[in-house]
């Protein structure tokens, strides 16, 4: 589904990704771990198409098609979803209106009519129940005054509504207490199928107890330096990242 080959990227002439390779197939869950500043969030933003990064070398393919020149919204229409580490507050636009607009714009891009209001409401009800989101919450301005946990839950709610092919969860566990973590992880697991894939970017192993990865990658200094199965995450949790750095020397 996603194939990244020899990706080099920089921001303001500072090189951040330095030859990164990863391949994610449908039905898989990949975890990307690594120390601060390794380039984890950069990778997420580049896949989503944030334009302040410059790709200097390499390719990003989604279902065999190069997406590196597409606008962020076009990538979203092709099924890329990024759950933001820091979701943006948009005062004056309610959660419901925002997600309606997002869904209908995506449908429009695919040549479809707007989703009938009845279906939309039904879907909103189902998905908000899945994420244990209060109805009142949906009429509030998007992310404005939300707690860290509410913001993250709202991200996964939007993911549930948009049903992406490839979901990238950037530090979705940060700022979550244990109950919220369980709700969010449960939501993600319910949405998983053999046709979609998830990339979990995280610092800690704890989210991976709930969302069990098929592969764990260690990102260090702009490259994937080690790949293993779920046990690698436990090892990292126990030993930290220093041993990997030492292995590299």
């Amino acid at each position, binding site marked *: 589904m996603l194939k990244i080959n020899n990706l080099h990227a920089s921001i303001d002439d500072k090189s951040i990704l330095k030859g990164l390779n990863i391949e994610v197939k449908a039905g898989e869950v990949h975890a990307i771990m690594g120390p601060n500043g390794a380039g984890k969030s950069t990778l997420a933003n580049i896949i989503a198409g944030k334009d302040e990064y410059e790709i200097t070398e390499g390719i990003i393919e989604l279902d065999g098609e190069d997406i590196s020149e597409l606008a962020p919204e076009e*990538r*979203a229409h092709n099924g890329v979803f990024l759950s*933001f580490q820091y979701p*943006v507050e*948009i005062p*004056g636009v309610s959660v419901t209106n925002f997600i309606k607009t*997002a869904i209908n714009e995506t449908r429009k891009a695919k040549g479809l009519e707007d989703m009938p209001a009845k279906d939309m409401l039904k879907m909103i009800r189902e998905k908000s129940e899945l994420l244990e989101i209060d109805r009142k919450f949906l009429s509030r301005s998007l992310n404005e005054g939300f707690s860290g946990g509410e913001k993250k839950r709202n991200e996964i709610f939007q993911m549930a509504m*948009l049903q992406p092919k490839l979901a990238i969860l950037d530090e979705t566990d940060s700022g979550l207490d244990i109950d919220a973590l369980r709700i969010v992880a449960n939501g993600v697991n319910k949405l998983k199928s053999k046709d979609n894939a998830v990339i979990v970017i995280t610092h800690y192993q704890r989210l991976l107890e709930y969302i069990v990865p098929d592969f764990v990658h260690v990102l260090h200094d702009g490259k994937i330096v080690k790949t293993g199965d779920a046990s690698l995450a436990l090892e990292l949790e126990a030993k930290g990242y220093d041993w990997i750095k030492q292995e590299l020397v």
Partner: protein
Amino acid sequence: MELKDKIVESYVAFENGINVNTAIHDIRSEALQNFEKLGFPTKKLEEWKYTSLNAVLKNDFSIFPNKENSIEFADVKKYFIHDIDTYKVVFIDGKYSSFLSDTTHDGKDVCLMSSALSKSKYKAVIENYFNKIAKQDNLTSLNTAFANEGAYIYIPKNVEVEKPIQIINFTTGNDVATMIQPRNLIVVEENAHVQIIERHQSLTENAVLTNVVTEIYAARNANVDFYKIQNDKDNASLVDNTYIEQKTNSEVSVHTFSFGGNITRNNLNFYQRGEHINSILKGITIIEGKQHVDHHTLVHHIEPNCESHQDYKGIFDERSTGVFNGKVIVEKEAQKTNAYQQNNNVLVSDKSTINAKPQLEIFADDVKCSHGCTIGQLDSDALFYMQQRGIPKKEGKALLMYAFANTVLESVKIPEVKSRITKLIATKLAVNIGFDL
């Protein structure tokens, strides 16, 4: 001939053509002398530093269009709020159009300034209120000198007007550049309520200059909601001089929506003469091209325990320019005043300009006065966030602008006005957003 000279010379002919009593005649003559002395404002005046009328005044304006011009309702329906029942006071080139109007004398007066100025039954109200709070400055004096036509609205004690009143000035100016001087007087007695929508609309590509003066008096417990829709053609300029006097426990709100026109200057003045008064001043400006919108507001807190709330949002694209000058004066006696002023601006293009100047003069020591003024760009992180969710950049920008302006729309009390403004904004931003905010 300079426009000023042309105006002064026309005065005698004008005065001969209308029927007014001596008192009114004296007010007018004095105003003319005032204008003769002061002339049109120039950028040398501090109050006009960022707004120049020079280019506009070069037009060879006809001073009083004499022709009776008529227009078909179907052609101008879109300028009315037409999905609800309203009273209408409509003028075409400064002359009353009975055909397009819907006035009343049933328990209140919603009619014409020209009859109020000439008929004896209105004499007492005119004596008490006409030109009592309007300033003696250059353009207000010019209007007073030629004050004759406009809306006259008198709402007696305890009357809650059952539907909004629309005041609309059309200019057809088919052959010539047109200058008009509408004069409105609105008196709202104790416990009375009224909602008013005002619009100036050119139907021509020729130059138009409207210099309107509106005096509003809100007695004890009175409630007035005033909506100004300014979305005129590129060659139409507007100087709006509005003066409002409020008495104890009254509430007056003025919303100004400025989406078009050439040069638009709003002089909005509130005088609080009583206690527990609430004055609300709100505005949304969205302009582009070479359009210019200038908001000069004044809230004069004269007595204790009153409030004022100002919230002006501006979005400036291309080479458009904006001015916000918000003056709040709190007199020594006006203790426990709560004055709030907010002015936020977004410059969409790097060629657009805003000159913002909050001006607080506070002489009392036990008051709450806050002001905030920001000038920024659209939040690129928010834009990326929306794009990531599949909302294209253009729609995303529009959504951000809607959201930005929404705090002002929230307080619009007439749903049809609110949805009209939302639609105007959508048209303005050339997007189709599937919901009303």
